[in-house]
């Protein structure tokens, strides 16, 4: 992974409390899994930055290496990789996601 793209990723996750690397945008997701995570964040009223990896093929590959995770979407909260669609869905269903956002003081 080149240093430039690594810097872009680090900047995004440091400057945005909640960061979602996704296919498409929060308004127009291009993949069902990205849509599912984006919708969960919307339901919880979370302000988040959606980063469309389809706009940048280099980023699309780099984020997989960065997180050591082979699929997209990928959710970061306060700089920490939380998981992909399955984990986020599970955490949403058992209330752990909301707990996490409260703990990180992103929602009250």
């Amino acid at each position, binding site marked *: 992974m080149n240093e430039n793209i690594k810097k872009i990723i680090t900047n995004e996750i440091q400057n945005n409390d909640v960061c979602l690397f996704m296919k498409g945008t929060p308004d127009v997701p291009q993949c069902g*899994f990205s849509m599912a995570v984006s919708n969960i964040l919307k339901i919880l009223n979370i302000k988040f930055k959606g980063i469309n990896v389809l706009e940048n093929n280099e980023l699309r590959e780099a984020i*997989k290496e960065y997180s*050591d*995770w*082979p*699929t997209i979407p990928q959710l970061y909260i306060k700089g920490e*990789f*939380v*998981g*992909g*669609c*399955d*984990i986020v869905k*599970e*955490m949403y269903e058992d209330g752990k996601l909301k707990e996490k956002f409260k703990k990180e003081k992103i929602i009250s």
Partner: protein
Amino acid sequence: MAMDKNEIQKLIKEAIPDAVIDIQDLAGDGNHYSAKITSGIFKGKSKIEQHKIVYNSLKGKMGNELHALAISTKEKNNE
């Protein structure tokens, strides 16, 4: 790009011998699967670590030959 259900099963079983695996072909197209995996190996590990073990068992096929695999992992306790 598609992958056979039995091949997925075989790869997971090779990496996690005690796994109880339930794979469903969600769309009937050999491209969208769900896998429920129960194993003692998951004990004490975070969800991210558990899913990584499964991804690693697929030897780089995830996101390539295999487009979509919804993973659900569970710890096996009765051992």
